[in-house]
């Protein structure tokens, strides 16, 4: 694996890893890691660093919904234009064009169900290109970004073994 790919794979597991420890794991020096990080950030592959948060473990109000969006294209309006219009709202956490029964898969977050519903009905549904929205509120999160919230595989190995 080349160094950049290896660095990406490592960051995708733990983006908070410190540069010295990354260097040790990749068998290189901290300066090289800094250099690679700068390149990955400026060239586009690394778009940001975020914590994976289990909101249900906090006392913060946090509601998420997956919204299916059907759209109708015309001469002036393509997927790109519609995506640009929707993606700019901060409430939109992710936006993807997908294959299948609908066109866009949107993840929307807010402080309450009312918040989210209002956003969909006032900001998304009225767009001329949007023909249908189906909103699925998230009721329970079991796994997010590869991290299992259930802590299912405990370590019950013997402490010392041959």
């Amino acid at each position, binding site marked *: 694996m080349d160094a950049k790919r290896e660095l990406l794979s490592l960051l995708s597991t733990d983006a908070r890893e410190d540069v010295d420890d990354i260097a040790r794991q990749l068998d290189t020096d901290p300066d090289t890691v800094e250099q690679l990080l700068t390149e990955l950030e400026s060239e586009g592959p690394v778009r940001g660093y975020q914590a994976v948060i289990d909101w249900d473990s906090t006392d913060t109000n946090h509601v998420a919904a997956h919204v299916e969006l059907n759209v109708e294209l015309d001469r002036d309006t393509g997927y790109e234009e519609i995506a640009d219009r929707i993606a700019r709202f901060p409430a939109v956490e992710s936006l993807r064009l997908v294959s299948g029964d609908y066109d866009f898969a949107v993840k929307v977050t807010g402080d309450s169900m009312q918040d989210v519903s209002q956003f969909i009905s006032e900001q998304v549904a009225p767009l001329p290109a949007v023909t249908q929205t189906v909103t699925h509120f998230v009721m329970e999160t079991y796994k997010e970004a590869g991290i299992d919230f259930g802590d299912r595989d405990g370590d019950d190995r013997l402490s010392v073994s*041959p």
Partner: protein
Amino acid sequence: MTLQPNDRVAETPESGIRKFFELAEERDDVISLGVGEPDFSAPWAARTAAIDSLKAGKTSYTANRGKLELREAIATHVQRWDQTYDPESEILVTTGASEAVDLALRTFLENGDTVAVHEPTYISYEPGVRFAGGEPLAVPTSADNDFLLTPAALADAGAADADALILCYPNNPTGAVMDADETAAVAEFCVEHDIDVIADEIYAALTYDGDHTSIATLPGMRERTIVINGFSKAYAMTGLRLGYAMGPAEAIEAMNRVHQYTMLSAPTTAQYAAIEALRSCEDSLREMATEFDRRRRFVISRFEEMGLDCFTAKGAFYAFPACGGDDEAFAEELLEAKGVAVVPGSVFGPAGEGHLRISYATGMNELKTALQRIESFVETR
């Protein structure tokens, strides 16, 4: 006296691992770098296959040699190491690779046969040889030569007269790997001196600098080698107890005779898990190996920073740094002072003295903390 163990058993001491296990169990703040098994669980697809087999009531014996479907999958799997074995007649599924080692020793040793065992090495071989009526002959390897086995080391130890050799690379406890040329030199020695080989290749899937070379694939070796492998290390299935032996049809037939009278067949549930592991879990294997490789490099550079000599282990999930002095005292004091459990190298034979076996089958965060603790222990010592 009743129930008096025979001399072979009576004279075999308890493993030195046991002592450290008991010491570590006394405290609850211990980070253990003393574990000889992966910290991952078996791939989920393999676990569900085992569960489904149980639900479907697949709880009877299998064929003595193991399910043919599994042997066929094994035959395909081992082609990656250029090993070609006929699933019908040249593969035997066993209850862990451990059973395969024991079977090979009991099948091929005559009373008093000499079996060369390179040291430091896995703790079960020498007792296994004795239980089977043979005499182990220790062949020391050293840090000077990256713990590799050489014809010179074999000759110096008097192994030219040995009847068999147990070869274990990638090695537990050192993490050493023999490359193609190094393995070929040992193969030539075995052919020249007519020595059979039991090749324990349980860590074959965990090499980090080039692929594993199996001695059985070298000229003149197939007919004199039993290859042993299993699912414990590569697929994190230690508790499912499943391994296999491969060799010429007559040899496997002979081993199967011992197996059928003693074990009957390997655990059925584990066989279903293993079929699925081979069918669909290559990604899990690769991800685990990638993670081990990162930890390996991390651990080795940390020991370098501490000023402990640590040769570049290229396989398994062990590093084997020198601790500069009495390894047993070092390990005991480290556990006492810092709550880090490691295994002293001398547990794996006198050639391991002055070294520590560091297992990096532990999560990265714990590994970092453990190495910090070792560093501060080394500084104050």
